[in-house]
């Protein structure tokens, strides 16, 4: 297959196999055509669907962030309420 970038299929196959480590790594990072070739080469490489576990992990992370924010808000409210209460008690 001919590509505008002139990288050969054999080079990409060697790269995919980890033989050609450094020569074209930077190039592949930005070349759509080379990525397209590699995407076809690696199609089916993963025998499991990662979408579900990753989305679950993200949901948990978002939930924990929300809880942390809520906790911080509650602490802030308690602090403000405490100041008002103590201010009133002093008067």
């Amino acid at each position, binding site marked *: 297959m001919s590509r505008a970038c002139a990288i050969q299929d054999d080079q990409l196959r060697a*790269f*995919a*196999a*980890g033989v050609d480590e450094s020569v074209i*790594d930077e190039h*592949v*990072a*930005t070349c*759509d055509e080379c*990525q397209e070739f*590699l*995407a076809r*080469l*690696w*199609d*089916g*490489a*993963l025998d*499991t*669907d*990662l*979408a*579900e*576990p*990753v*989305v679950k*992990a*993200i*949901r948990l*992370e978002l939930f924990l*962030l929300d809880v*942390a*924010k809520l*906790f*911080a808000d509650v*602490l802030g409210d308690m602090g403000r309420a405490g100041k008002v209460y103590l201010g009133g008690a002093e008067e």
Partner: protein
Amino acid sequence: MRNDATWEVLSDLDLARAAVDDLGAFGELIRRHQDFVFGAVLRVVKNRTQAEDLTQEAFMRAFRALDGFRGDAAVRSWLYRIATNLAMNSVTRRREYPSDTMPERPAADRGPARSFEAEELRAHLREAIAELPDELRVPLVLREYDELSYQEIADTTGLPLNTVRTRILRARRALRDKMEAWR
């Protein structure tokens, strides 16, 4: 939330934009590119189990950096950079600390009182980080939690390198102020 069939017709860029508010879109993005990302990681780490873990981590990082992704690069190129940076860092770490030789903290640091203080400190730190605005929190988390270099953060978020440095500096200052107020 839309169903999977609706997501399938969207371009990568539209999916990335939709994924900020809808995890269904991000799930489709994962399904579309998981083989490619896995292949890119496996090429570097040469171990399927580790490559699978790192592929999941790469997508987690991508999600955390979605806010900063402007679409200047193709989504696949963006994912490729995140995944290969992660894989290379993992290989470097394994070379530095082969299994069973990870340095442990001295025992004096692990007494119950210290442990409680440390846990309390961590909890406050987590809250303080959560309170930061996204533009400061995302680069900081990528730096401190994901241990990315400034350049990797710039690649991941699409921000200029100097902006990354400035935002991390501002985030650290904001955190220091919050933690000093707590103490």
